[in-house]
């Protein structure tokens, strides 16, 4: 159990935030359904989608600090600077997540 740092009671947290997170859950489900319906298919192999699939079980493992652990899962864990920057953007998931 996490330290009780939230200013609200458990029931208050549910009352305040349930609906917006119900909507976010349905958005995620609809995104995965949309991917299934795409033609031609193939997005399931995208490293970003695979990273999401790896992250989802962390929501229910009961270990706490879910946000930090998901961010870490999506992160590049190498330690040395890369030789050169060949692009300026970021994908949202590290290639290593896909291994």
């Amino acid at each position, binding site marked *: 159990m996490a330290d009780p740092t*939230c200013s609200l009671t458990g029931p208050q947290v549910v009352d305040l935030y349930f609906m917006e997170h119900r909507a976010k859950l349905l958005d995620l489900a609809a995104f995965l359904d949309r991917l299934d319906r795409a033609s031609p298919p193939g997005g399931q192999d995208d490293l970003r989608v695979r990273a999401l699939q790896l992250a989802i079980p962390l929501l229910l493992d009961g270990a706490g600090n879910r946000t930090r652990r998901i961010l870490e899962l999506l*992160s590049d864990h190498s330690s040395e*600077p890369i030789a050169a920057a060949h692009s300026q953007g970021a994908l949202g*998931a590290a290639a290593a997540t896909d291994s």
Partner: protein
Amino acid sequence: MPYIDPHIHMVSRTTDDYARMAEAGCIAVTEPAFWAGFDRSSPAGFFDYFRQLTEVEPKRAARYGIAHYCWLCINPKEAEDLGFAREVMALIPEFLDRSNVLGIGEIGLNKNSRNELQILEEQIEIAKRFDRLILVHTPHLEDKLKGTRLIIDALKNARIDPGRVLIDHVEEHTVTAVLDGGFWAGMTLYPDSKLTPQRAVDIIECYGRERIWINSAGDWGHSDPLSVPRCHVEMRRRGYGPDLVAKISLENPIQFLGQCPGFRPTS
């Protein structure tokens, strides 16, 4: 309630945004030099940009009673070309004594490359040489964790006083390293990437209200110049009083930025 947005790119925002921010209580902004959404074709482009930050924006902000301050640097997205970056860095000293310049920023890393790191180290040295505050950009998304670690190492190697450095765009996986290192932490509120108002308040609840602030980092992309007051609403939803808003969005920015003698937002 009066507040400071300590990181927003007003050159990319409309005058209407200044008006709406003033109506929401904004009394001061600080604007780091950044990537404009495209690579400048010459250092002269940065000369004009620095003039815009030090001459044009303060006047535009003043029309709405908002004090405007800025930070100068070559941003990490345009730091891959060492020669180009050094030409831009050579322009910085002549602007440093202008009245609204707070220090060097937002320096940092983007893709965590060797050249980005080299230019970061050279700009840290500029801040040391001129005894200026530093505002640091940490990389986006999957590059943030590694970049934050490299940046903290570079700052420690340079023996910079961490109390004079704000490391921005922290999230749940980087905030501990920043605060434990003695640095200030900035939380950026973005619609998709970075933090929501809810997560920012979560971080305050978990890591405390010292050496931390919130900002909109509003710019030319998907962002909201009113995200700071929206986060204040989130604080109130959780039952916090005006003391928390004042601490995070007024007292903390004044404590950090007040280390620059020219910062007088309420005068």
